[in-house]
């Protein structure tokens, strides 16, 4: 049905109003004419040329006609009486008295009354017809007004308001109500009412369609009920007796769209009335209009909601895909949902420890958000809570509460009066909580809540929320996976560069990863051991297992262990283990060198202190002896002591010199000369010096080839090297024997050999004797002193002269040290 436009309706309304006002004013004019017109005619008597009896009689007749026409029968009658009196008093001789004169006069008076009656009757019928037309028009106008307002209505609330406000008036009713079938089709809900006493619907907000009530029956049976009185109603519906005050009429009609009942409308009248066909038809029309408009708006509303949902879902999807910072994205999503989708929207996430943390709360009003956040901090979610977010996360099932009842609030508050008061104050109406599930795990939950300013949620909203949660969970999961991948990537990149070895084992003890440092420290090929058990594939792992394996969730170590590795080498390794539930991480540090250095260093301290102590005690003792004044020393003793002091002081200075030299070599601060000199001459001078302190049983010999050319280097340092080698040769020849120095040319080098027939050096030690602080096994060289620095210094010096030094030896048969120095060019 196409309702008339608002402009047209208004025009009709204006016309109707002028007609009724004219009707009212003509009656008044009639009465005015009834009194004034006869009086005016009577006043003509005062004129000098006074009208004749005939003329006056005619004028009075006109006055009666006018009054009867305008004012009706009563006015006409009054005008006729006044006219009769006026005509008799003023214009009928004898004038100025009321004595009737003749039959003419009587005929005139009769005429007045006949005219008054005829005219008034004639126009009274017309007026009645007009009045009826006017009433019908007014009703039509009211209907038009209802239609007009309905046309403007876009929300269900406006529709219901228009129907009830205008419709009640149009139906001449005192009050009205509309009930609609709910989504389940089983219940009728009073969605709007007007004109009733307060509280009349308490307990009647909803009632079952199957019930024995007028509206339920009207809807069920698609039949209107018209009750002229309360008694009539009570007779049909006994349970209704006693309701609704004094006896009155009641009309209840089903709201039907395309043959389908969507609800019912009730009109309550102030008094008992009879429902004639016209009244019934009007009510039916109203009901029909209401039904169609409600349906139209419902469709419109549904379409609008659908469009809004689609838009929201599209916006949300775009938002979710826009960033990997899912915390920020979810907070934005919550803001996107208000106020259209929800009055309140919140997102809660499950933390690493399983606790539930609120990620975001959104509301139109930032103050409310702040308030909600502080309230959330005050009431942290209890994971065991039987409903709400914890329950949704725990059960991974959505919670849909279309109608938040007070009982529900009381239950949720769990006896906290203050909390109950707060949630009651919020006026929460409807709620949806959906879990965010990815890969079978609840990541969190999304909550949508509407208060009583917004419509209740429907199944459609639940579907939308579920879809939204699905997309959000997938986005969050992607972001988490990406982050983890990135972190793992970072971690393995970082692990490749750390010096510490890191080995990751899974719960079963199989190797998951081995970084390059660990592969080096443990002497394994990482590709070969990954996937194998550590015990079976990494040498020495049983030692690690025994001493560094942490118990579940614990950390153990670090401990330093000597490990025999797969390739047979021994290595000191510092190990610590951390069990992180899914496996164990072991960290390794190779301490072999530190250990060796530590040992040689402490050996050196012991050796050096002994080496220093012996000459020191000799010098000190000699000085004390020389200072004796209790006895007289003979001159030989004095002489011997003096020369002993000199030689021991030299020895001391030599040891100190070696230590200092080592320091300089290590710091790279030893300046070397580069001179050309004759190696043969230098060797002979070294031998000459050594001869001075030569022990018995040792002989020094020099054998030089004829063609040894000059060499390039630092002669003083080379002298030191040779002196040291000669000194060693003597020292390690305790049984005596010859020490031979041989010189010859070897390519671009001069070759100087120092050969003894002493203790010799085991093969496995020949490499190490040039190391700092290294000394031969004391069991073999018992009593042979030295700092362990001489050969180290020799090697360093020779190499700095671009020469080389080596040894060839056989235990028990002696050693030959070879020094080669580059020839001068």
């Amino acid at each position, binding site marked *: 049905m196409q309702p008339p436009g608002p402009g047209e309706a208004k025009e009709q309304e204006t016309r109707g109003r002028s007609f009724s006002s004219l009707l009212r004013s003509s009656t008044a004019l009639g009465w005015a004419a009834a009194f004034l017109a006869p009086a005016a005619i009577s006043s003509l008597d005062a004129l000098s040329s006074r009208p004749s009896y005939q003329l006056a009689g005619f004028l009075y007749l006109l006055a009666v006609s006018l009054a009867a026409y305008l004012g009706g029968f009563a006015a006409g009658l009054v005008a006729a009486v006044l006219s009769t009196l006026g005509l008799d008093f003023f214009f009928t001789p004898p004038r100025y008295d009321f004595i009737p004169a003749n039959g003419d006069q009587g005929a005139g008076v009769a005429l007045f009354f006949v005219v008054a009656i005829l005219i008034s009757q004639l126009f009274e019928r017309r007026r009645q017809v007009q009045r009826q037309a006017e009433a019908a028009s007014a009703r039509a106008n009211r209907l038009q007004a209802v239609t007009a307002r309905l046309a403007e209505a876009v929300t269900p609330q406006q529709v219901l308001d228009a129907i009830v406000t205008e419709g009640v008036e149009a139906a001449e009713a005192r009050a009205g109500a509309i009930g609609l079938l709910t989504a389940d089709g089983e219940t009728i809900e009073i969605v709007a009412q007007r004109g009733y006493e307060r509280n009349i619907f308490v307990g009647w907000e909803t009632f079952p369609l199957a019930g024995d009530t007028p509206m339920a029956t009207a809807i069920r049976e698609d039949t209107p009920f018209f009750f002229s009185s309360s008694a009539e109603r009570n007779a049909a519906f006994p349970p209704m007796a006693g309701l609704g005050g004094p006896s009155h009429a009641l009309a209840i009609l089903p709201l039907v769209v395309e043959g389908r009942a969507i609800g019912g409308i009730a009109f309550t009248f102030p008094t008992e009335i009879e429902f004639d066909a016209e009244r019934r038809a009007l009510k039916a029309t109203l009901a029909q209009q209401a039904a169609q408009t409600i349906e139209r708006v419902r469709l419109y509303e549904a379409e609008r909601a659908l469009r809004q949902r689609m838009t929201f879902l599209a916006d949300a999807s775009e938002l979710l895909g826009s960033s990997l910072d899912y915390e920020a994205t979810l907070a934005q999503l919550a803001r996107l949902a208000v106020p259209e989708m929800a009055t309140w929207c919140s997102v809660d996430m499950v933390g690493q420890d399983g606790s539930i943390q609120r990620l975001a709360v959104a509301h139109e009003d930032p103050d409310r958000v702040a308030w909600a956040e502080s309230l959330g901090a005050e009431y942290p979610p209890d994971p065991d809570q039987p409903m709400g977010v914890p329950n949704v996360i725990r059960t991974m099932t959505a919670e849909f509460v279309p109608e938040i009842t007070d009982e529900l609030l009381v239950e949720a508050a769990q006896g906290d009066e203050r909390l109950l008061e707060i949630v009651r104050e919020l006026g929460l109406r409807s709620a949806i909580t959906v879990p965010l599930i990815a890969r079978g795990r609840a990541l969190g939950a999304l909550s949508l809540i509407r208060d009583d300013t917004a419509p209740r949620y429907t199944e459609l909203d639940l579907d939308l929320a579920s879809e939204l949660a699905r997309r959000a969970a997938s986005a969050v999961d992607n972001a988490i996976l990406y982050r983890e991948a990135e972190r793992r990537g970072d971690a393995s990149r970082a692990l490749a560069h750390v010096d510490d070895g890191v080995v990751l084992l899974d719960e079963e003890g199989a190797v998951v990863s081995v970084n390059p440092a660990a592969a080096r420290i443990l002497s394994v090929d990482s590709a070969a051991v990954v996937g194998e058990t550590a015990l079976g594939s990494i040498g020495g792992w049983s030692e690690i297992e025994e001493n560094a394996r942490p118990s579940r969730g614990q950390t153990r170590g670090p401990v330093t262990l000597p490990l025999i590795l797969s390739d047979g080498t021994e290595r000191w390794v510092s190990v610590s283990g951390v069990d992180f539930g899914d496996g164990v991480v072991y960290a390794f540090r190779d301490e072999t060198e530190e250990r060796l250095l530590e040992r040689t260093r402490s050996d050196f301290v012991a050796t050096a202190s002994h080496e220093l102590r012996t000459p020191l005690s000799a010098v*000190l003792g000699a000085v004390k002896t020389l200072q004796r004044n209790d006895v007289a020393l003979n001159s030989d003793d004095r002489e011997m002591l003096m020369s002993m002091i000199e030689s021991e002081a030299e020895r001391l200075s030599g040891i100190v010199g070696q230590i200092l030299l080592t320091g300089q070599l290590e710091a790279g601060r030893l300046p070397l000369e580069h001179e050309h000199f004759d190696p043969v001459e230098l060797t002979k001078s070294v031998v000459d010096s050594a001869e001075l302190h030569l022990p018995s049983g040792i002989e020094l010999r020099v054998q030089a080839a004829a063609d040894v050319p000059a060499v390039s280097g630092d002669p003083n340092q080379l002298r030191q090297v040779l002196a040291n080698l000669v000194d060693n040769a003597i020292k390690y020849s305790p049984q005596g024997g010859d020490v031979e120095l041989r010189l010859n040319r070897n390519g671009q080098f001069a070759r100087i050999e120092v050969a003894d027939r002493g203790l010799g050096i085991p093969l496995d030690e020949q490499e190490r004797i040039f190391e700092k602080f290294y000394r031969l096994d004391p069991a073999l*060289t018992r*009593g042979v002193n030295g700092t362990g620095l001489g050969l180290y210094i020799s090697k360093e010096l020779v190499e700095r002269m671009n020469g080389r030094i080596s040894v060839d030896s056989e235990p028990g048969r002696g050693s030959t040290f070879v020094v080669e120095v580059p020839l001068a060019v």
Partner: protein
Amino acid sequence: MTAQTQRADPARLLVLVADDEPPIRLLCQVNLAVAGMDVLQAADGGEAIELARSSAPDLILLDLMMPRVDGWTVAEELGADERTRDIPIVFLTARATTEDRRRAEKLGALGYILKPFDPVRLAPLVTQVVERCARGEADALRKERSPQLWPADLEG
């Protein structure tokens, strides 16, 4: 070294000094001689055992670190030999560890003098040890642990 195998004068004390360091032997020689003692010198452990057996000295000043045969071996060998077991031994060494001193104690040493030592005090110590041992007070002397004969452990 002095190859003296017979006592020149039975009234003078005969002391054997075993040390591979000639300066130490010289210090002992000079200071004991001015106190009226005769001194035998050994440059290593083997020589020391030989001289102890052949000369029966009144006391041995024994270094620990000597080539081939060290001081421990000398003390063990002499302690195991009937003829030499009663010769008082005083170690004269640079090795200052507690462990070494316990070992010396177990071997029945009467003193453990640390290098560097005061050679001037050497003769009175030798006289004291020899006289107390001659009176059969060797065990008492060991128990006394006089600070001159058992100086404090410098290296802890």
